[in-house]
C-alpha cells in the first residue's frame, strides 16, 4: 500500500513538474522587459534622403544686441519691460548719477563765486577808471606827477585783465557744467536701434557690470527670426552655400518650418558645451550657418529656443 502511494506519488509529481515548468517558463518571459518600439514622442522624420543634422538656436534677425552700460554702476531706474517695442534713442535705463549731481552742485557754487569775482573785478575797474578820469581831468600838469598818472593807467589795465580772467573762470565753470551734464546724460542708456526688448537682466537697485557675458538687456528684432546652426567640423565638408534646410523645434517635433539660407560664418568656432564648466577644454569646433525664417503665423516661436536642423547634403564620397 505504502509503496503504491510512493509509486503513483512520484509519477504525479513528475507530471506536475513538467506542467509547472511550462508555467514557470511562460511567467519568466512575461517578466522580461519588451524590447523595441518607438520612443514615446517620435522624433521628426528626416526631410531629405541624405542630410547633415545640426543643432541650432533661434536668434532675432540681424543678431541680438546685448545692451551694455558705459560704466559699471548702480541701476536706479529701468524704463522698459520685456516685450516692449522701442524706438532708436529711447531711454532704456538710468544708472546712479548722484556723484555727478554732487559735482554739479559744487560747480554751481563755483559759478556763483566766479560771478561774484566778476562783480568785484568790475567794481574795482570802475573805481580805478574813475580815479584815472579824475586825474586826467586835472589840466595843470604840475598838480599830478607823470609817474602817478602812469601808475593809475597801469592799474586800470591790470584791473581790466583781472575782469577778463574772472569772466574766463566763469566760462570754464560753465563748460565744466556742460561736461557734467553730458556725463549725466551718458548714464541714461538708450536704444541703439529700433527693436523689441527680449530680455531684461537688471532691476532698479542692482549693479550693472560692463562684462560682455552678462548683458543688462537684450534687444532684438523678433518679427523675423534667424537660426544659427552648429555643424560638427567633421561634417563641414558636406556643406555648401544654398543647400535646402528644415528646422524642427526641440520639444515638439510636429512643429517644422523651412529655412532660408543666408550665409556660412567663415570662422569655425569652438563648440559651446552644455556642461558649462569653466575649465573645459575644447575638442570640437563647429561651423555655423545662418538661416532666416519667417515667423509662422500661428506658431509660438521664441528667440533662444533650440532647433534641430536638417540640411540637404550628399553623403561624403566614400572609398570603395
Amino acid at each position: 500500500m505504502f509503496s503504491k502511494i510512493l509509486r503513483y506519488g512520484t509519477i504525479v509529481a513528475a507530471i506536475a513538474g513538467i506542467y509547472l515548468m511550462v508555467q514557470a517558463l511562460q511567467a519568466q518571459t512575461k517578466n522580461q522587459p519588451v524590447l523595441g518600439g518607438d520612443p514615446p514622442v517620435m522624433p521628426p522624420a528626416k526631410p531629405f534622403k541624405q542630410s547633415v543634422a545640426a543643432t541650432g538656436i533661434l536668434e532675432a534677425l540681424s543678431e541680438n544686441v546685448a545692451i551694455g552700460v558705459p560704466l559699471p554702476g548702480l541701476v536706479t531706474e529701468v524704463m522698459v519691460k520685456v516685450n516692449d517695442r522701442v524706438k532708436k534713442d529711447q531711454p532704456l535705463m538710468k544708472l546712479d548719477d548722484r556723484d555727478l549731481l554732487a559735482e554739479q552742485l559744487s560747480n554751481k557754487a563755483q559759478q556763483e563765486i566766479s560771478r561774484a569775482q566778476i562783480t568785484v573785478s568790475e567794481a574795482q575797474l570802475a573805481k580805478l577808471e574813475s580815479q584815472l578820469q579824475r586825474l586826467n581831468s586835472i589840466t595843470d600838469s604840475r598838480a599830478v606827477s607823470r609817474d602817478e598818472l602812469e601808475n593809475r593807467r597801469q592799474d586800470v589795465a591790470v584791473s581790466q585783465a583781472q575782469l577778463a580772467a574772472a569772466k574766463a573762470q566763469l566760462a570754464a565753470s560753465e563748460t565744466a557744467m556742460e561736461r557734467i551734464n553730458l556725463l549725466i546724460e551718458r548714464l541714461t542708456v538708450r536704444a541703439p536701434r529700433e527693436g523689441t526688448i527680449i530680455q531684461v537682466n537688471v532691476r532698479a537697485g542692482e549693479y550693472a557690470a560692463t562684462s560682455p557675458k552678462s548683458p543688462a538687456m537684450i534687444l532684438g528684432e523678433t518679427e523675423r527670426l534667424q537660426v544659427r546652426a552648429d555643424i560638427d567640423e567633421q561634417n563641414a565638408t558636406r556643406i555648401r552655400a544654398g543647400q535646402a534646410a528644415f528646422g524642427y523645434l526641440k520639444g515638439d517635433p510636429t512643429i517644422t518650418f523651412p529655412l532660408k539660407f543666408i550665409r556660412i560664418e567663415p570662422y569655425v568656432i569652438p563648440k559651446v558645451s552644455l556642461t558649462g564648466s569653466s575649465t573645459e577644454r575644447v575638442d570640437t569646433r563647429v561651423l555655423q550657418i545662418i538661416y532666416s525664417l519667417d515667423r509662422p503665423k500661428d506658431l509660438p516661436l521664441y528667440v533662444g529656443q533650440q532647433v534641430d536642423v536638417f540640411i540637404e547634403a550628399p553623403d561624403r564620397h566614400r572609398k570603395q
Partner: protein
Amino acid sequence: MIGLALKMLFGDTAKYLMLVFGIFFATFLILQQLAIFCGLMLWTTSTLKNVNAPIYVVDPQVSQVNETTPMRDTDVARVRSVSNVRWAMPLFNGIQRVKLDNGAFKIIQLTGIDSASLAGAPATLVAGKLEDLRLPNTVIIDELAVNFLSSDPDKPIKVGDRFEINDIEARVVGIAESMRSFTGGPYVWTTYERALQYAPPQRKMLSAVIAAPMPGVTLEAAAAEIEKQTGLRAYVNRDFSFDAPDDFNTKTVFWFVKNTSIPISFGTTVIVGLIVGIAISCQTFYAFVLDNLKHLGALKAMGMSNFRLSMMLVIQSVTVGIIGFGIGLLATAGFTFSAIENGAPFFMPTIIPFAVFAAIQLICLFAASLGIIRLSLYEPAAVFRT
C-alpha cells in the same frame, strides 16, 4: 513485456526511490545552476533591456555595455546625419551615489535620456507619468529602488518622494518596471541635460548615442553604415545569440564569460551534478540488475531473447529518468517562481530543460547499458544451480 519491466522496477521501492532521487538531484542541480548562470549573464545586459533602443553607438574602444568611454556632444548630430538613421538621441549612463534622508549612501545606475523624444525611456511604468520627467529636478526610479532607496523598510518610496543625487534634489515622478543590474544598483532615469548636472562634470559626458534605422533598413545595415560614416562603433540591440557578433547583448555576455570566473564556478557545479547523477544512477541501477538477476536469468532460460531483455532494462532506466527529471522540474519550477518573486538572478532559456533531459536520458541509457552487459554475460543455466 513493458508491464513486466515496470512491475520489476516498482517492486523494489527502496531501489526505485534511490534511482529517482539520484536523477532528481542531478536534474535539479544542473537546471538550477544553469538558470542562475543565465540569469546573472542576463543581468550584465540589463542596461540594454531597460534603455529601449534598437542601435547603440559607442566609442570604438568600448567592448561591453557597462563600460563607458564618453564621446563628444556633436557625435549625436554626426550619427543623425547618416542616411540610414531614422533618429539618433544622446544617452548618459553611469553609476552615481545617492544620499538618503538618514544620511546613508547607495549607488544607482543613472540614465539620462533625450528630454524631447524621451527615447530610451522605460517601457512600462507602474506609477506616475513619463511626461512629468520634463518638470524640474525629476527622476523615474525602478521597482527595485522603491525599497532600495528607502531608509525605512516600512515606508517604500512613492511618487512625490525626494532624495539627493550628488547633493542635488531628485523628485520621483514615476516608478518603472526594469531588469536588475549586475552592479546591484537600481535604475534611475532623468533627462540628458539633468543627468549632466547630477553627474560630476567631466570633459566629455555623452556615454552613447541611441539610434533607430529608417523603415525598411535592417538594424545590421544601419549599424554598418553608421560605422562607415562616423568611425564610431555601432551595435544592434537584439537578444543574445551565438551567431551575432554585432549584437551588444552577445558581446557583453561573452566579455563577462571571458573576463570573469563566473562560468568556471557554475560550470564546475554543473559537472559535479552530472557526475553525481551518473554515479548514483549507474551504481544503483547496477545493484538493481544484480538483485533481479535471478528473475532475468529465469526469463532468459524460458527463452526470452537478449534483445527483449535489454529493452526491458532500457524501459526501466528511461522510466526512472523521466520520473526523476519530472520531479527535478517540479523543484526547479518552485525555485523559478520564488526567484521571480524575489528578483533573484534566474533565467531559464527554453532550450535548457530539453538539453538537460537529453543528458539525463543519456546517463540512464549508460546505466542501462552496464546492466545489459552484466545480463548478457549471465548464463541462464546459473538459475538452476542455486
